[in-house]
């Protein structure tokens, strides 16, 4: 986790190469051959599935391509104009922005809190870590199934309604209720359950890298637990926090699985869902209507949005700042 190690080794290797202390056993030509053999599959694969794919898609986005992968007519920026004017697409962007604004702080706070708690205990630490991490191995489909059919099924015997009943609340149809939008609780808790463990592991690694002397010195000065958290733990977790926020935001913008499976789902079935994030919208356009031109344009608009948001976030959180 230390930043200095790789650079130090690289520096040593470079230095020894420069002084010629370690002669190369083969000529440059064999080095070139080995380099080509080892990197060729990766370069070819990324070339095909990223560069060719994105280039082709860019062409499609500027043309009319319905039910065919060859653009039939050049339409310039019409696809982009259509999407930006389409209330459906604009709503989907708004949906995903709202979703990300909700899910990121909630997941951040929950995973940091669990990491701090797990880090404090001696006995049972492995058990708790496993309990929080094991949902990360569950798919969104299986989680959506349990959330939709058991926890939030809307029956009086459903888990959420049973717990609510203990607090004196009436049973409600969680997924079907739009005013207020109770389905957000279903979507947020689902993703929280699946993701918290991953980020908790990252925070745990960050916590364990904090030198204990800092806390010992603060304890001698009589600092309270909260002050130590505020003035030692949080600043020392700065790099971890920046990375975690970035990962959470990018993942939030690409939400698809739970929106597809929690509501009625199926191709075209998503039209009955109260909210569609952009990937569901694009899926319906590309796979439902087979409109690859429009779908490609939407993919680029969404990419632009994600890149812009992450750059902005990097600016605000000071990603890569050397301090």
């Amino acid at each position, binding site marked *: 986790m230390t930043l200095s190690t790789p650079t130090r080794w690289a520096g040593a290797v470079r230095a020894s190469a420069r002084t010629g202390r370690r002669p190369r056993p083969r000529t440059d030509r064999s080095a070139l051959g080995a380099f080509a053999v080892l990197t060729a599959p990766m370069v070819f694969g990324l070339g095909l599935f990223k560069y060719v794919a994105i280039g082709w898609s860019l062409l499609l986005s500027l043309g009319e391509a319905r039910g065919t992968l060859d653009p039939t007519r050049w339409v310039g920026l019409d696809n982009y104009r259509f999407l930006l004017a389409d209330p459906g697409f604009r709503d989907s962007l708004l949906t995903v922005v709202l979703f990300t604004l909700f899910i990121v702080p909630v997941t951040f706070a929950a995973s940091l809190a669990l990491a701090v708690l797990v880090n404090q205990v001696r006995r049972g630490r492995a058990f708790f870590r496993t309990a929080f991490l094991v949902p990360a191995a569950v798919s969104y489909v299986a989680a959506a199934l349990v959330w939709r059919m058991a926890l939030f099924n809307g029956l009086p015997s459903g888990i959420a309604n049973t717990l609510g009943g203990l607090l004196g609340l009436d049973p409600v149809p969680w997924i079907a209720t739009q005013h207020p939008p109770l389905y957000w609780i279903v979507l947020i808790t689902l993703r929280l359950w699946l993701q918290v463990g991953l980020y908790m592991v990252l925070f745990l690694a960050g916590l364990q890298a904090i030198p204990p002397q800092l806390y010992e010195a603060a304890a001698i000065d009589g600092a309270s637990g909260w002050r130590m958290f505020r003035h030692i733990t949080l600043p020392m977790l700065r790099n971890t926090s920046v990375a975690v926020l970035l990962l959470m935001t990018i993942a939030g913008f690409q939400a698809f*699985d739970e929106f597809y499976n929690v509501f009625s789902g199926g191709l075209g079935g998503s039209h009955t869902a109260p909210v569609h994030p952009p990937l569901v919208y694009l899926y319906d356009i590309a796979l439902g209507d087979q409109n690859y031109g429009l779908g490609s344009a939407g993919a680029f608009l969404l990419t632009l949005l994600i890149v812009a948001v992450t750059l902005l976030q990097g600016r605000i959180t000071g990603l890569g700042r050397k301090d």
Partner: protein
Amino acid sequence: MIRPIRRRTVTTLATYAALGLAATAFLLPFYVMLRNALMTTRQVTSPDWQWLPDPLTFDNFTELFSDPAVPMASALGNSLLIAGVTAPVSTLLASMAGYALARIPVPGKGVVLSFILATMMIPGSVTFIPTFVVVGALGGVNTEWGIIAPGLFNAFAVLLFRNFYLRFPAEIEEAGRLDGLGYLGLYRRIALPNSTSMLAALGALSFIDSWNAFLWPLVIGQDPSSWTAQIALSTFLTAQSVNLPGLFAGAVVTIVPLAVMFLVAQRHIVQGITMSGLKD
């Protein structure tokens, strides 16, 4: 001296109480899923809560595998094949490229590195339409290779392996050099056998991601014969005929293989998450 000790005891108790509550909440969905999978429809929908299925029934599992509408057996087989190929191959390809980029001095290496790393700027699932365009044109729709191929090339894993091999002590390779090994030999005989923990960590994560993938297999595997376990489960879930305990049995069979692997390889998985989350 008494007060601080007492306060510490109270804090410890509160910590355990909070952790216990949270762990119960996190494990509850697993319990509910198992409970419902082992019940009859009548028991699941009964308004009287039953903690444990009584009597226990395994019929949901036998029915699940004999239901012609949900080809769960072949879907599990497909998932096993897809994740079983993707995990080792993608990890190996990333390790090869990472080694070359870290240890072989050739001119123009920076260009290759930039070419590979630049692909990381585009968020993965957004590109499902461009990737569909290419895989579709190559005839990969409804095939296993169409589902597998785009997932074999992971630029981020290349970066992690490159960082790992940059740190690799030069002395270890020295012996091989003296034995007359070329770069390919050094990679295969020395670097690769010394990267087993990296391979296990990234391989385990890749297996989980591949097993749980949904959007891409949904896009490319439209025919039931190419469905993965996730697609079969999702189809079952969104179908109009609801067989409630059967659904939970379906969820159980898709989760159990991973849960077992997770408990066995947890150390590697934790290491993999830490590495991928915080690149050095």
